[in-house]
């Protein structure tokens, strides 16, 4: 079957099978910044924003979200024009292997969209669906706090 999506602001029409997950479709068509860590909705490496809502793309059928707006980490910022959350992750040392990072950044973005001034507990809760085995989360939490402050200061 065919379907169109708005991915990071671009209209994309692709073909896929009815039972293909959104994750499989995104990766197949080159959006490899969306990572696959478990395929069971637990690690959070594959999270994207679906019409602004954070979802595990491995748990969503592509067919069920046709014509929707999908944002991956690349839709938030790029190497040349990084989003403040990406910059904060880099600066405080929140990126080690970096496999969980795209998902973490999407989760942080979803949080800060709703709550620009989260406290530590709210940050932890917002990230608790994203597993990281390298950092121990300390610097990830710090990065989200820093990004929130900067985003508030800069409007």
């Amino acid at each position, binding site marked *: 079957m065919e379907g169109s999506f708005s991915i990071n602001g671009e209209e994309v029409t692709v073909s896929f099978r009815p039972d293909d997950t959104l994750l499989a479709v995104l990766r197949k068509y080159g959006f490899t910044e969306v990572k696959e860590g478990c395929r069971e909705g637990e690690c959070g*490496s594959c999270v994207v924003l679906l019409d602004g809502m954070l979802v595990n793309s491995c748990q969503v059928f592509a067919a069920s979200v046709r014509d929707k707006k999908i944002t991956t980490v*690349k839709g938030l910022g790029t190497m040349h024009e990084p989003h403040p959350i990406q910059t904060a992750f880099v600066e405080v040392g929140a990126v080690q292997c970096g*496999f969980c990072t795209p998902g973490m950044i999407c989760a942080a973005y979803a949080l800060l969209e709703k709550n620009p001034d989260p406290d530590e507990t709210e940050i*932890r809760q917002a990230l608790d669906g*994203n597993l990281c085995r*390298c950092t121990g989360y300390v610097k*990830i939490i710090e990065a989200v706090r820093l990004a929130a402050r900067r985003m508030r200061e800069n409007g």
Partner: protein
Amino acid sequence: MGDAVKKGFMNIGKSVTKIDSLSLAAGDAVFTDDVHVKNPLYVAMLYSPHAHALIKNIDTSAAEEMDGVVDVLSNKNVPRILHTTAGQGFPEPSPYDTVLFDRRVRFVGDRVALVAAEDERIAVAAVQKIEIEYTVLEPLFDIEGAFNKDAPKVHVDDEYAKIPVTYKPENNLAAEIKIDFGDVERGFHESDFVEEHTYNTHYASHCAIEPHAVLAYFDEMGRLVIVSTTQVPFHARRIVSAVCGIPVRMIRVIKPRIGGGFGGKQEVILEPLAALIAWRNRRSVRIVLSRREVFVSGRTRHAMRIRLKTGVKNDGSITTLDMDGLLNAGAYGTHALTVLSNVGSKTLPMFNKVQNLRFHGRSAYTNLPIGGAYRGYGATQGCFAFNQQVDIITRRTGLDVLEYIKKWHIQSGETSKVFEALGEGKEGVSQTIKSCRLDECIDRGADEIGWYKKRGKRIQSGPDLVRGVGVAVCMQGSGIPRIDMGSASMKMNEDGSFNLFIGATDIGTGSDTILAQIAAEVLQVPTQNIIVLSSDTDLTPFDTGAYASSTTYISGKAVESCAREIARQITGRAAMLLETNEDRIFFREAAAVDEKTGKTVSFEEICLHSLYQDEQFQIQAQASAVVDESPPPFIAQFAEVEVDNKTGRIGVVEFVSAVDCGQQINPLLVEGQVEGAAVNGMSFALCEEYLFDSKGRMTNPRFWDYKIYNAGDIPVMKTIVVNSYEETGPFGAKSVGEIAINGPAPAIANAVFDALGVRMFNLPMTPERVWMRMKEEGVI
């Protein structure tokens, strides 16, 4: 060149931004499965449903007949070449007991066959059509009974040890180590009391968030390119060549970005399979394991039983120490010898003043998942026992545990016979400790957690909540002396930048950045002027890879000496351009300076001149490093816990790590290593657990049921790095990659005792286990 590098660091000790982090944060960095390969074959595996069985017959015809199936591999068509998947140097200290597809299956999850097909669904469907007739055999699950005469035998064919070590598969003995100093029995005789306890540590999965993956394809010259999530690209090339019969010259292994390793990706499991399929079919191949496959058929931390028996005088002096370790190797003996060796070699030297010492370790084959390398590498298991034993002794003698450790632990200028006795499959290397700031680690860590205000106070923090604090001290190593080798090559570019080529393998730790900082420091240029290319067997020189906490220390020394040779060449050209003597030249901010006249010539001018002007040559160099010792980093870790004395649930309130890793190359990355390892250690201690049914099947191979710590679980974390300098290390550095994973389990167990008076001898310390122990001890 004189003292070309002026004192005061420009790059070392600075939190230089990890060079790949922006690319990773932006989603541009390429991991193995992100590499685009045209029309690869997809692979699905068939695994044994039995813990122990002989394969009577394999019928692959139905699978082969399916549309889209290209190849089916099993013991029928793959030569039986014994090897080890351990991914160690050559010859490996792990036994050659593994073949790609065997006639016997040895655990639930052992590989039986695979299908390569045009797409993943076809492969998965086809693999289910393979029919296997098994003769089911009695399995061996009990390590204590493994050496009994009538125990089922796991390996009875032609398995052998590659090096002269004790290896008796006919007895299920995968490895054995014995050392004995002084007179242990007399030591017991002279003691006032004996403490004898048995500690059990459990299976665990590395849980790198990226599962194991490999791609194989042919380049335009018909050579086989293997892109892999490997920690050991050069070992992978060697092992693929040996197992698949493909010449080394036809193989190129590339490690792109890798999503965590922790030892699990030291194992060369998938590369030979991908290579073989590619080679047979002249096709590209993609293999990516599912999370279930990683849990069940990947590698694990070896479960262990350690019995510690100490003879002690009433003043706390240890007259004798007897450690008996029994390691569950699982179905194959990969790392079964060397992890066992490290159980002793990373714990026993800690109290080097003990005169009478015995370590007897054995590794037993069982019909359970395979143990392997895992961050900590035996030190994790050994430290759990050792640090609780120290807590027990000091409580019985009424001594202050911190002062007691300070009195007994190894110090700078001291040695331990254990260093010489225990090596990697052979004797170790004698060494004298040159840097040990463990006392300061203990003092500063204790201050941070408020030790003396909390220890023994059993502070009530809620109706059923009581708090306690515990400590653990540990050491690790910095690479494997006289075995591991790192190397580097460099060349200069006309803007004064440098390409640095290293075989060293950054598995997310930041070693590319660390090694760039070392080169930049020698040359007095900003780190960004060093362009790093690592882990490509065609382009970079050899390195043993990312294991044994070796990269900063060993690969770092190779980079340092390579950069010094570059500096020598630059100095020569600078002297020529400044018309001065080489010994008057020093470097400052990417320029060479004549210290007498103050005249300078920039690196840019130097390189342009050397490439284009006169007596041209490429400023370039290469160097290798092998080390004569393995200076241990030291750590003191403190846990404050809150235990629910009705349910047994343990919450870690605060966790402090104070580490001596020599001179820090990059403080932010050091903290990252310590924090990440400490959280992994806590997760291991409290909630991660392999559950097996009576048939030896792992029943929880998924993150839903195998719980690892998330952002909501972590306590308040503090990391202290003490000022230290290791004279043999590059710019004074030692390692820091593994050490912090060892302390959490014993520190938490000691804290639980402080809170409840209940000793936790077995891991993990789940609420059920704590509650049962509280029942046994009558405190509930």
